């Protein structure tokens, strides 16, 4: 996704990436980044929590419109309101993805 932002930015359209892995977006050289410490699949926050979603989108728009230089990163100061152990399990698919199943079956037996 950061590389998609780069390609679209190179076509002349300013971009901001809202991501749970801002360090990776920096590594991938995204032009503008907003980091959120949320589980995967929840870039704008908790379902139904309009206040949280609005804080993230408003910051994203500020970073999009007001960043002065390539590589600007601003992180959102919101703690995920679900205990880590529960949230860690909750975002993952109930059935492992095909590539994960393939990787697991290719591991040598212990």
């Amino acid at each position: 996704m950061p590389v998609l932002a780069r390609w679209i930015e190179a076509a002349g359209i300013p971009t901001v990436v809202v991501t749970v892995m801002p360090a990776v977006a920096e590594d991938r050289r995204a032009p503008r980044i907003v980091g959120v410490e949320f589980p995967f699949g929840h870039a704008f926050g908790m379902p139904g929590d309009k206040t949280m979603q609005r804080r993230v989108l408003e910051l994203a728009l500020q970073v999009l419109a007001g960043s002065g230089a390539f590589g600007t990163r601003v992180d959102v100061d919101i703690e995920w309101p679900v205990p880590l152990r529960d949230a860690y399990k909750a975002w993952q698919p109930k059935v492992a993805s095909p590539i994960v199943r393939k990787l697991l079956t290719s591991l040598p037996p212990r």
Partner: protein
Amino acid sequence: MIVDSYRFLPRSFRPLYEGRGPFPGEEAPVWAPFEKRLAGARIALLTSAGLYVRSTQPSFDLDREQSHPEWGDPSWRSIPAGADVADIGVAHLHINDEDIKADPEIALPARLLQQLVDERAVGSATAEHLSVMGYQERSLDGWRNETLPELIAKLRDQQADGLVLAPA
């Protein structure tokens, strides 16, 4: 507060992401200045959660991904800004999609963006937003060669002044 990028990632996955650096050929800065005031700008959204409109669009091709695990559907969907929540489908095998189905705004906040337009904080929103499925084969050739030119054409056609992208 600095976000921990790996807080919710299984420990065994971390080396797949951490410290990998830029893709080859993607090292240099790219920059398009945001020239307008936000209150006079048109904004588009792009999600990689694999959203699609169930009544009018095919799903992303998950059957092929099941049989070819290194492959991910590189196509894209146009999501009307006012699409009915109940009509939004999610096609992504790498996340639990229950929360996105319950509230697609956590991936594509089209209604919230429209609210900011109504409040005159943002000039306007594009009539259609964009959706891709984020799991892609490593070369990214499908995105680069087929999807990207169409996404850019769509954004230009809608006169988008800026794009907010959210990986799933």
